[in-house]
């Protein structure tokens, strides 16, 4: 093994990254990411790996990774594949491959509750979470259905089938018209009602004190 300078062992592994809590030596500081997300306590850490940097990774091309490269960056649809599907085609896909678990018209079935409605319910005491009410970006439906559905045969639908069933679910939620056809561009353009429904983590959000006696 290569010899190392001892100070490297304790060096902050984050390197060039902005790490507010790095200098704190762990604890005591609420480190946040550049985008404002609380990180919790950061290093240096008591148990460190040897600083040696052997290289065992095997170079691979993006082309060879493509069969696994199924994620979609949902706000701008990056990663959406070519293909298209209509609401009508989506109903056919749904009634063959989804209805057994999700029920007719996605209103709830043997394995899962409703996937329609709930828009406007979040200001009430009975929030109804559906793709229509909850997803901030329409490509989330594509990403999730492609990676995880149908639950008894995931990652088995063609891109056209996923576009179609996505169009159908959006239509059932009143978010696209019955004649809609979804492809990479039109799906990304759908405006979802919960688009602005999220706040970045702002905890700690409580101010409990350590009362020891005569507490209420």
């Amino acid at each position, binding site marked *: 093994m290569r010899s190392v300078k001892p100070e490297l062992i304790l060096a902050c*592994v*984050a390197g060039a*990254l902005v*790490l507010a809590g790095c200098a704190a030596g*762990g*604890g*005591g500081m*609420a480190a946040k*990411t*550049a985008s404002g*997300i*609380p*990180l*919790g*306590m950061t*290093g240096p*850490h008591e*148990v460190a*790996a*040897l*600083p040696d*940097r*052997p290289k*065992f990774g095997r170079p*691979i091309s993006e082309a060879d990774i493509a069969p696994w*490269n*199924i*994620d979609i*960056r*949902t*706000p701008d649809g990056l990663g959406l594949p070519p293909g298209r599907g209509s609401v009508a085609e989506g109903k056919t896909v749904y009634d063959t491959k989804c209805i057994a678990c999700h029920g007719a018209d996605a209103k709830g079935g*043997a394995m*899962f509750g409703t996937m329609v409605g709930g828009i406007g319910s*979040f*200001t009430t005491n009975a*929030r109804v*979470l559906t793709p229509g009410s909850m*997803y*901030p*970006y329409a490509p*989330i439906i594509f*990403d999730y259905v492609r*990676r*995880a559905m149908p639950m008894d045969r*995931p990652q088995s639908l063609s891109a056209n089938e996923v576009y179609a069933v996505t169009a159908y679910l959006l239509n059932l939620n009143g978010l696209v018209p019955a004649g809609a056809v979804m492809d990479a561009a039109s799906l990304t353009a759908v405006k979802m009602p*919960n688009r602005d*429904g*999220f*706040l*970045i*983590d702002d*905890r700690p959000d409580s*101010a*409990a*004190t*350590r009362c*020891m*006696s*005569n*507490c209420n």
Partner: protein
Amino acid sequence: MTSKSSEKTGSQSPGREEGGRRPEARSRRNFLRSSAALAGGGMLAAGTKAAAAPLAIPSIAHETGRPIPESVYGMPSKFEAHVARRRTDVFKNRQNWSDWSMSPLQHQPGIITPNGLIFERHHAGIPDIDPATHRLVIHGMVRQPLEFRMEDLVRYPSVSRFHFHECSGNGLTDWLKPASTTVQQTHGLLSGVLWTGVLASTLFEEAGVDPRGKWALFEGADSAGHARSIPLEKVMDDTIIAYAMNGERLRPENGYPVRAVMPGWEGNVSIKWLRRIKVGDQPWHLRSETARYTDPMPGGKWRQFSMVMEAKSVITNPSGGMDLKGPGFYEITGLAWSGNGKIRAVDVSVDGGKTWREAMLEGPVMDKCLTRFKAPWEWDGKPAVLMSRAVDSMGYVQPTVKDLQKTRAIVGFVQHHNAIQPWTVNAKGEVRNAIGQA
């Protein structure tokens, strides 16, 4: 203590030695203060009953035991069969692929959860992955996309670190009124694990992260393709690409052959059956980080990327469903943990939060790790309400549900429940879940 129905309560030592005080406790002044107070300053019940009959010689004394098999994986005693993971008893899930099971914390001494008892949360069941064919790739905004095989991963310099592991949904059935009976049901989406693996930073540095890279998508090889966007700061700080837990390779239900571990963060981000990591310059906003694993806030909003599991504690003995065997000495003990560092102190109350005394922390006390606390209690036979309150190294004090209600909306299945858990003890000695009541 004995618990309801067929449940047994693990080893509850009566702790008679030295007046019920553990020897190591005497070194802690604040602990002495607390023991005096919790015991009401009174004497311990001296009721050492005479043995009822001469000791029997059991038949096992005359029979040779089981011989050592040539090779075997040892299992717990058949008399411990009641110590098992359990799905929630609060409701019946319509399927058990995207479901969870909980650790029997009432039976766990110490701070390590045995591998067969570590809680589970899967989104499409448990895959059985052959390590010989498994591949992990890192790609996206990197200088050189890389593929790793298991034989590669185990050759890197490794780390072994103790951390708590908790699901963000721990406690979601029990916010405003009791629905669960036992601590397994209220808090069992929690385990203590010694993780072994290679630091993610090692692999990322080898692939060479593009300076514009800010986030990484971690994705599982299971049929849910479960995936989360993780800020690179976390990846480079302490994320472990783990292949072993508690001294053996991962169990299939915990991500075999390789998983991510993001210490102190909600369990959901520690992707199991890890197959792919993609570096990007912004988060992906997938279903699991928008429609799920977000927290309802007033005004119809949702808190997103709430990753850190804040300081929390719970008394595991006595706890819900147990029966105290009459007045006298009990060791109140439980677990405390924080994603924001170490546990600095745990306070215990037996009067529903009117007065508190500092408990003893049983070392080692480690970063983002379960910490065991203990406090002696002389039960006078009157109704009592037991609570614990953790303080972490940031000075954060564990809140009550009422404290959290001031800023959050408690509606539906709410995540990130780190509030104080009260257990009531009635005059009969029955211990009950009293969340939202006391």
